[in-house]
């Protein structure tokens, strides 16, 4: 059982696209898989054609008495379920703050899910917040998409520093960056790609290229493997990413 959080302080880096495609591949490979859309924007829910709505909103989700189980929706794909987003998630921090253990609640309410699913993917909103502290505690690994620009590198460093500072209290969380939206025609991307490998041993060898096909997920409302050719670069890239994730 593993919980993977697609996480980045920065927005628009490919968290949702990766969460959707990795969860799909996990399910395709026979693992019972759950994707939890924690972003009030509900992009993951949208890609799976599931209404981004939770009856009872964030309070229902955070309730320790009622199980999350009842809120889960089956996707159109075998082994793959979704816990949809809700607009009220934009104030999750407010609700969390009112709880007795505001940074540990997520881990607690997820426990029953860890019995049912082999892989859980969390699609996180971009920010450092109480919610993200919850995520750091609940997840086994943070999968961090990084666009190979100098700015992204700075935010990755920021994240690392934050986790280092919190150190003890966050436990075993692994930070595993991977390159996203890589444009190989750009020299800068290439340079950073090579340079960063040596700095971060945990960085994935596989990277996700910039591809119109991936953008089309919004029109197709499906994981990219569902409509793209099996040998297309983007499908191949996600497959490599998935293999690597699985192997360590």
């Amino acid at each position, binding site marked *: 059982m593993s919980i993977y959080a697609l996480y980045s302080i920065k927005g628009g880096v490919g968290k949702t696209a990766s969460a959707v495609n990795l969860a799909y591949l996990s399910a395709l490979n026979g693992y019972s898989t759950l994707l939890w859309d924690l972003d009030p924007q509900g992009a993951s829910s949208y890609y*799976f*054609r*599931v*209404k981004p709505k939770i009856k009872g909103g964030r309070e229902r989700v955070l309730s320790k008495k009622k199980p999350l189980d*009842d*809120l*889960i*929706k*089956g996707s*159109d794909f075998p082994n793959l*379920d979704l816990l949809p987003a809700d607009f009220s998630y934009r104030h999750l921090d407010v609700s969390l703050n009112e709880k007795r253990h505001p940074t540990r609640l997520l881990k607690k309410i997820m426990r029953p899910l860890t019995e049912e699913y082999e892989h859980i993917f969390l699609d996180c909103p971009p920010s450092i917040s109480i919610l993200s502290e919850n995520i750091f505690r609940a997840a086994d690994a943070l999968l961090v998409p990084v666009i190979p620009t100098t700015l992204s590198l700075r935010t990755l460093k920021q994240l690392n520093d934050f986790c280092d500072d919190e150190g003890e209290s966050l436990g075993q969380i692994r930070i595993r960056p991977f390159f996203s939206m890589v444009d190989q025609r750009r020299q800068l991307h290439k340079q950073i790609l090579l340079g960063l490998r040596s700095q971060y041993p945990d960085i994935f060898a596989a990277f996700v290229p910039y591809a119109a096909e991936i953008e089309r997920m919004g029109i197709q*409302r499906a994981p990219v493997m569902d409509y793209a050719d099996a040998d297309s670069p983007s499908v191949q890239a996600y497959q490599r990413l998935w293999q690597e994730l699985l192997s360590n």
Partner: protein
Amino acid sequence: MKLASLHYQLADDKALEILLENSDAFWFEQASESVHQRRYYDSFDWRLYQAKQAVYSEDKVAETRLYWQQNPAATHSASSQIPPVFAEDLPHDWQSALKPILAMRSLEEKLSLDVRVLQYNCLNRYDKTMLRLYITYYQIEGEISLEDNLPISLDIEPIRGYHKPYELMQARVEELGLDTQKPKNLLKRCLKLAGLKANDYSAKLRLDLTPELNTDSACRVILGHLANSLNRNYAGTCAGIDSEYLHDFRVAGRRSRALLSQVKGAFAPEQMGFLKTELAWLSQTTSPTRDADVYLLKFETYRERLPEAMQADLEPFKQFLTQHQQICHAMLKNELEGKRYQALMQDWQDFLDKETVISSDDAPNAKIDILTVANRRIWKAAQRLLKTGKVIDDDSPAEALHDLRKLAKKLRYLLEFFQSLYDKTEIKPLIKNLKILQDNLGDFQDFEVQAEQIQAFAEQMQNQYRANSATLMAMGALSATLLDGQAQKRSEFAACFQIFSADKALYKQLFKEESA
């Protein structure tokens, strides 16, 4: 709350239009149509069917799947590469249930169906699937337009978190009166339509004799039945797919011999001479293979008799036996495919076909009613068994028990031949108790024979340089444990005999007084 998938059987497809009706909130779209073959497997003697189980395979596009319908509510499936032949070829977690049913019997294809599956998705306005519906049509392979007679399966598969369409489908189904969740036995109906009969073979003697029947006619019926049993098992015996064909083949031959020797005077001696000698030949010809089969069937129990450290040393013995069995079987096949067997069965058939008039001097019992003869014979056999057994004590030689075994066997055959003449509830317990004694005597002798034979095998293996000292030692140890086993059986004999002899009054009442 998890929604359960629903299964129904429809007599025809009239209801489908209503079921697939669209509403404002959702509509149905055909997602796929596929056709594949389903093959039902069972043993020659329908062991699965009798145990109310079914095993079938379906050739899907990507793979062949094997299914095990354990009961109407539970069907398991697993991917499979090749058609299963023995229980050991089935998926591991099925074996604990299916091995005891199939034992040594092999599976054969009994029936093949064409299966057509239509999948409909129930979509909402985002084209999200909220429910899946599968409609399955069956058709017996090669048959045309029988489709209408076979039920149509309807499977409703909910998707987690989508209750509304599920509840609506439930309501529709209820409205249509499709409340039978329990699937009717599809296989049964298919067999009927295909003109096939399950349980068309049983190793048991299934006769229905009437008491007034003349003895010669009754014996003809029994001999006809036994000839049929030989014929039915002939192909499987020659092919050697599993050991049970030969077993049943031999039982039919032995029963025939027993009938001829136990019911004397039903036919003229010259009529039956050929059958007697030829059946003796058949028994002789088939016994080496059967013996080898028995050693192989028992091999696991042999292994378990040895201390764990020795068990692996027995492996060369198994290889030897396997090869030995193959050689015996090849020779047997050669014999059975030869003229002598053909002539035997031809003469047998001729004898059954024409009733020759014979004088009552030659066949004194021929025109006596079968009940009278049966009573006489059974009572006599029971008496002999009782008398002979009574005097056996701890000092009697082993031969005394071996002889007793033969007497018990004779009585058993007689009871089985003629059981339809008597009240089932009276005769069944007698057979059951007799069987306890027979098993004891059988084991007693088998242990001895096997202990000896294993030593002979060991010598043979040694001469052929096929056994090292560890293997020879293991085989020696095995022989010793078998002799221990024999001693154990001996100590149980008195109790087993007691069970049989306690029925004396019943034997008397059933078979003696009526003949008086």
